C-alpha cells in the first residue's frame, strides 16, 4: 500500500507545476499515466509525500508544426497508435507502441514521455526516441529548454531533470524508412533487446539504435553495412543485466537484433 500521507496537486499552468516541483524537491513525484509510479509507490520503492498531476496542463496533444511533430507528455500509446498522420510520418513510434505489453489497459493510460523519463533499460521508448533523434522539451523554474533524447538519458533510471523541471513534450521529424526488432522472453516480458533502424532521407545512410542492451540506448551510424557486427561489438561495452537476462546474453544477441532491424527496414520499411 502507499504508506505516506500523500498530498495531491493539480497545477493549472506550467509555471505552477515547476514551482511545486521545486518547492517539494526530493519529496515529490510527477504523475503522468501513473503506470510505473503507482506500483512503485505501492511497493514503497518510491517514498514521497507529494504527487503533482500533469493532467490539468493539456499536454495530451500531437501537434504537427510543419517539419516538427510535437508529442505532449500526456500522449498515451493509444494516442500514438490511433494517429493516422503520425503513422504516415513517423511509423516507428506506432510500430514500437504496438509491441508494448499490457494490452489496452496500459496503452490507454501509459505515456511515451513517462517511459522515457523512467528510463528503465528494459523498455522500448528510450531506444526509439534516440533512433529518431528526438528532442525533449523541458519546463523548469526558468522556463523552457530543449535537449536531445540521448543527452537526456543519463543512465539506468536516471534522466537530466533538475529540481523544478518536468518534460512538456518531445519533438521528432518525419522518418519514413524504418525497421524494428524486439526480443522478449515471453509475452509478459519487458524487452531484452531492441533495435531501431532508420534511413536518413538525405544521405540514404542507415543508423541502428540498440535499446535495452546497455543502460542507455546506443546509436550506431553505419557507413558500410558489412561492418555492422564489428561496430556492434565495439559499441556494446557494458551490457545490462537484470532479473530476466544477464548482460552476456544481451551482448550475444545485440548483433542479431541490429541485423534484423535493418533487414526489416530493407524489406518493409
Amino acid at each position, binding site marked *: *500500500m*502507499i*504508506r*505516506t500521507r500523500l498530498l495531491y496537486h493539480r497545477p493549472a499552468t506550467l509555471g505552477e507545476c515547476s514551482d511545486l516541483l521545486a518547492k517539494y524537491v526530493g519529496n515529490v513525484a510527477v504523475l503522468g499515466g501513473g503506470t510505473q509510479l503507482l*506500483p512503485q509507490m505501492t*511497493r*514503497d520503492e518510491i517514498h514521497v509525500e507529494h504527487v503533482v498531476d500533469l493532467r490539468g496542463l493539456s499536454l495530451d496533444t500531437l501537434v504537427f508544426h510543419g517539419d516538427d511533430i510535437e508529442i505532449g507528455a500526456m500522449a498515451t500509446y493509444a494516442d500514438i497508435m490511433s494517429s493516422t498522420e503520425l503513422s504516415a510520418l513517423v511509423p516507428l513510434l506506432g510500430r514500437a507502441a504496438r509491441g508494448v505489453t499490457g494490452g489496452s489497459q496500459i496503452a490507454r493510460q501509459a505515456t511515451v514521455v513517462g517511459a522515457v523519463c523512467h528510463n528503465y533499460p528494459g523498455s522500448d521508448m528510450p531506444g526509439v526516441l534516440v533512433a529518431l533523434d528526438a528532442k525533449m522539451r523541458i519546463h523548469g523554474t526558468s522556463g523552457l529548454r530543449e535537449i536531445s533524447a540521448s543527452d537526456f538519458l543519463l543512465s539506468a533510471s536516471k534522466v537530466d531533470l533538475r529540481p523544478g523541471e518536468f518534460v512538456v513534450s518531445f519533438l521528432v521529424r518525419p522518418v519514413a524508412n524504418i525497421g524494428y526488432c524486439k*526480443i522478449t*522472453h*515471453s*509475452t*509478459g*516480458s*519487458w524487452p*531484452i533487446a531492441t533495435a531501431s533502424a532508420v534511413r536518413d532521407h538525405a544521405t540514404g545512410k542507415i543508423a541502428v539504435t540498440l535499446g535495452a542492451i546497455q543502460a542507455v540506448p546506443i546509436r550506431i551510424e553505419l557507413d558500410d553495412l558489412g561492418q555492422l557486427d564489428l561496430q556492434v561489438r565495439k559499441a556494446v561495452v557494458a551490457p545490462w543485466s537484470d*532479473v*530476466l*537476462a*544477464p548482460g*552476456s*546474453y544481451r551482448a*550475444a*544477441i545485440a548483433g*542479431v*537484433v541490429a541485423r534484423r532491424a535493418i533487414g526489416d527496414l530493407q524489406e518493409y520499411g
Partner: protein
Amino acid sequence: MSIDIPHPVRSKREGTAIPSLHAMKIDEVPSDQPLRRDGNLLLTGRAEFLDDIVPRGLLHAAILRSPHPHARIRSVDLSLAEAFPGVCAALSGERAVELVGPMPAFFDPAMIGCRTFEFRCLAVDTVRWVGQPVAAVVAETLADAEAARDLIRVEYDILPAVLDAEKALESDAPLVFETWDDNLLGKFPFAEGDAEGKIANAPHVVAGELRVGRHQCAPMETRGCIASWERSGKLVFWASTQNPHPIRTNLSMMLRVPEERIQVIAPRLGGGFGHKFNGYAEEPLVCALSRLAGAPVKWLETREECLLVGAREFLHRFRVGFGDDGVVHGLTDRIIGNIGALETWGGWAMTFPAGMTFPGPYKVGNYHVESMAVVTNKAPWSGYRGYGKEQAAMVLERMMDLIGQHLDLDPVEVRRRNFIPREVFPYWAGAKHLDSGNYAGALDKALELAGYGELRGRQALARKEGRHLGIGVAFELTPEGGDFAGSFLRGFDTSTVRVHPTGAITVLTGVTSPGTGNETTIAYLVARELGVPSENVAVVQGDTDACPYGFGSFSSRSIGTGGAAAVLAAREIRDRMSAAAAVLLDCEASDLKFADSHVRSMTDPTKSLLFSDVAQTVFRRALATPGLDEPLLEVTKVDRPHNFQLVPDAEGRFSAYPSYPYSAHVALIDLDVETGVVSVQEYSAVDDCGIVISPKFVDGQLYGAIAQGIGGALWEYQPYDDVTGGPIARTFKHYLTPRARDLPMFRLAHQHTPSPFTLLGTKGAGESGVSGAMAAMLNAVNDALTPLGVTAHQLPLNPQNILAAIERAKR
C-alpha cells in the same frame, strides 16, 4: 462393454459392473452434464474470495521479514511501531512463544525417518531465510500497518549462508540447522534388481545431467487469512486454504484452545495448486494478533511474499543402459532437491515422489534411484501440482529420446518397446501397485491427434530452410490419491447426504474445491443417484462447523474419496426412500426407479410419487404409519480407492498411491537458434484418468496443468542473489508465467481405462498435464537442437540458457 470387477462396497442391486459404463458411452459428453454452478458468479466478478470478507472492526496485519538468509537476532525493538498512529498491536518472536506453541508440520519429516526441527510462528533467535517472519504489526489500515512495520528495529548478527544444494552437501558448508550434522533432511532410495550391474553390461549407456531451476505455482489469488475471536471465546478463522479441518486441529494445539471452539472456513480459492496447503506461520500468528488487538485481523500475502515460496528445484544425474533394440536394461538417477530452509510447509516431501514415480510407465526391473532433500538458506517449499512426479517424467522421457537419438530409432518406438503392456495390470512396479493402463493406446492416440508423421515432414522441410522446429513427445504417469498414515494426508474422506422435507438435498463433504468444479460434480453424482435435477443438490465444503472431518484437496482425491462417499450415502438414502415409497405405493422396493424427480414402479408406471412427496411423507409420518420405520434421511459415509498397501505385504511391497492416471503429449516448437527464443506452435495431449464424470472439468484441469508445465519448462524462474542471499523475482514482470499469446490452442482427446479399485472407476485428474508438458518442452527443445549437436538440460529453457548450451557445444 462391461467390466466385471468385484468391488467390496457396491450395493448388491448394482451387481459388480461399474454402473456408468452402462449409463453412457464413455466418449460422449453426457447430455445432463451441468455447467459449473458458480461459473456466472466467477465471470461477473460476484464470487466471494477471502479478501471480500470484511468482519466489522477488521484490522490489518503486516509482517516484518528477515532481510538476511542466515542470522542471529540480537534484539527486536517494537516501540516506534507501537507508537505509530492507528497501530493496535505488535508482536515479536520472544513474546509470540507465550501465545503460540510449536507449529505442527503439514507432513512431519520425522514420520519417515528424516530429521526435523521445532518451528515457531515468528523467529525467536535465528533467521534462516530471507523472508522469514520476524515480527508483526496490526493497524486500522494496511497502509498504516506497513508504515509502522518499517519502524521496527531489529539487530542481527550475520551468519554464513548457503544457497546452492551441492555446496550445502559439502563437508565445510554452513549448517542451516545447528543441531544437525549436515544439511541433509533425508535420503529416499528406490531400487529393484541390479541397476549398476545391468548398466555395466549393457551394449549402450547414455548419461546426463538435468537441472530444474527453482519455480512455483504462482496462484492468481495469493494466500490470506482472517482471525476473529467471538465473545464466547470461539475462534472463527477464514483462510484461503486447501485443508480447513487440519488447520482447525493444528490451531487447537498451537493456541491451546479446545478444537470444538474453533471454526475454520475456507472460502473459494483463486488457485490452490499446493501453495495453499496448511502449515504456514501466518495461520496461528494472525490468531494471536487478533487476540492481542481484541478485534478481527486480516493478513493478505503480497505478490512479493507469494514469490518467496519455492516449489521445485532439482538436480539429476542419470544413467541408462540399453540394448540395440532400445529396451532399457537398467537406469539410475541421483536426485538432489534444494528444499530451502525447512519449515512446517507442505513442500519438502515432493522429493519423495520425485524418486518413487520411477520407472514410470516403463517395464524396467533394474533401477536405482536416490532422492535427497537438502536444506539451504533459500525460502522453503510449499506444494505444487505434480508434487515431484514431474521430475521422474522429465528424466525418463529424456532417456527415451536419448536412446532414440543414440540408436537412430524413432523415440516413439523406443517408448513402445519399453511400456508396461496392458495385459499385466494390476501390476506391481516398485512401491506402486498400478491399477490399470493402456499406455501404448494413449500414445498412439496422441500421435494421431498431433499428426505426428506430418509434423516430422514439416520439420524436415524446415531444416532445409535453416529453421529449427522441435517435436517433443512425452508420456506421463501420475500417481494420485496418496495416503500417508500418521499425517493428515489420508486416502479416504467423508460425505454426508441429507434429504430435506421439500425434497431438496444438501451434501456436506470433507473434500474442498480449489476451483476444479468438484462441487458441481458431487452435486451431479448425488442428483444422478436420486433421480433429481442437479440444481436441487447443494454442496457444502470448507466449513468445519458444518462438514464432516476431511482432509481437503490434494493429490486429485476429491471424487475418488468425497465424491464416492457421497454416492454411497445417496444410495443408502435411496434404499431408505425406496422402502418408504414401497409402503406408500404398495409395491416391492426393488421395483422402484428414481428418475425425473419421481419414484416410479417399473412394472406399473401409474404407481408413482414425487421424490419430494416421499421425503415429506417420511418426515411427517415415519414411526406412525405402519411400514414407515426409518425416519432419518441423512447418511454419512467414508470411501476411498481400494488399492492401498499401507502395510508391507508378504513380499515386502508397499504402495501409498492407489490411482494412476496417465497422459501422452506431443508438442511442436520453433526455436530461433540465433537468440534462443522458443515459440510453442502446437500442442496435443491424450489423457486417461479412467471413467470421467465431468469431461469439461477434466479438460479444464488439463489446460491449466499443461500451461503450468510449459511455463515451468520455458520461462518461470526464481533466481537468488548470491550477495544478499535473497530472491530477485518479486513481481510478475520478473516471474514470467505464460499469457494467452504464448500458448497455442491445446488439442485434447481422451482414453478411458477405468480403475478397478474406485467406486466410479475414476482416477483423479487434478495434476495430469504438468509432468507431460515439462517433459514435452524439454524433448522438443532438444529435438530442435539435435542437428547442432546441442543438449539443453538447464530449466528454465529460456533464451539465455538455450544460447549458452549452443555456445558450449561449439567449443
